[in-house]
């Protein structure tokens, strides 16, 4: 029973780990913090995996637990001085579709999102991931109207950061 649960978890998590990496990238500023947050999210998802009943898609459930961990549970460690900042690391892009402009724009987008507060980050992230307002409101525990108002403000703030 336990082994089957572990197998399912590893399978689900491995397939969807990109979601967690993206969240780690917007909520942290260097590789050490990224790894710390990734580890905490992994622990939280595994700890609660037996409660996942499959009522929603695993990825939807994963968004919620991951964002909750990043916003609420995660404490930034101070062991970050020695490591490289993300800004120095450019994303590795596959050779065939390499496009320098796109690379720079993606980096600018990440940098812009990092300037937002924790709640705005979550809103923008869910917007970029194409989540409907109903799901965004449910994930954060606020009303749909409230989610829309907050989203518009967050988008406006990000727009100003990206196009000064």
């Amino acid at each position, binding site marked *: 029973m336990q082994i089957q649960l572990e197998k399912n978890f590893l399978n689900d998590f491995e397939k969807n780990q990109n979601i967690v990496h993206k969240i780690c990238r917007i909520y942290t500023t260097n590789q050490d913090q990224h790894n710390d947050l990734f580890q905490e999210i992994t622990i939280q998802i595994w700890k609660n995996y037996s409660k996942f009943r499959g009522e929603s898609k695993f990825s939807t459930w994963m968004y919620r637990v991951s964002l909750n961990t990043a916003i*609420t549970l995660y404490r930034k460690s101070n062991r970050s001085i020695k490591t490289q900042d993300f800004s120095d690391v450019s994303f590795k892009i596959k050779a065939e579709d390499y496009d320098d402009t796109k690379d720079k724009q993606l980096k600018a987008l990440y940098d812009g999102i990092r300037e937002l507060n924790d709640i705005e980050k979550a809103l923008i992230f869910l917007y970029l991931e194409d989540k409907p307002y109903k799901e965004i409101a449910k994930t954060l525990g606020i009303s749909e109207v409230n989610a829309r108002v907050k989203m518009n403000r967050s988008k406006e703030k990000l727009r100003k950061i*990206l196009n000064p």
Partner: protein
Amino acid sequence: MELDNYKTIWKNQPEEKNKLSALEIYKMTQSKSNSIVKWILIIGLLEFVFWFAVNYLGTKNGALDPFEKLNLINFIDNFNYFHYVVVVLFLLLFYRNFSLITTVDDTKKLMKNILLVRKTVKWYVYYNLINVVIFSVILNILIFNTPDGINILSGIENESFNQEHMRSVFIITQIVVIAVMILILWLFYYLLYGILLKKLNKNYKELTKLNEIS
């Protein structure tokens, strides 16, 4: 460039280069959590142990011997029984509120439940402080109503001491000790939880800010 264009870029972003294998993920699940929830649990339990120890050691270390002479032991015993019942109730409440915390809940509810645990501990600390003050006040009244109470308690049996003077010194010393203790504790808790919950409080405010409007 509009945000919708950025959305396209976001969607086409390359896959993470440092992808983890199933084995690496498995190893991670076996490591220890370092979340604020864990720290709140540890600190909360330490506070229970601390106050319990203060009370227990106070009664076991002979600190009460002089009170025996004043026939106050019964009062102190009853006070302690009452205290232990309250501690157990607080512990049950602490456990109940703590078990409500789950990252499966929505963000607002999760934050609310964490703050509830913090509140439980806060009330427990308040209760202990109030307990100390009330206990001291009642005790003082009883001591002052006992002839030679202060002399018996302080171990000085010389009649030549000025009773009035002793009484003032006794009261002032107690007030100063209690005030300093409360100040130190308040500062300690303020710093401890202030640091731990700074981010959470900020995010909770941010999330609930517009609730009144909609």
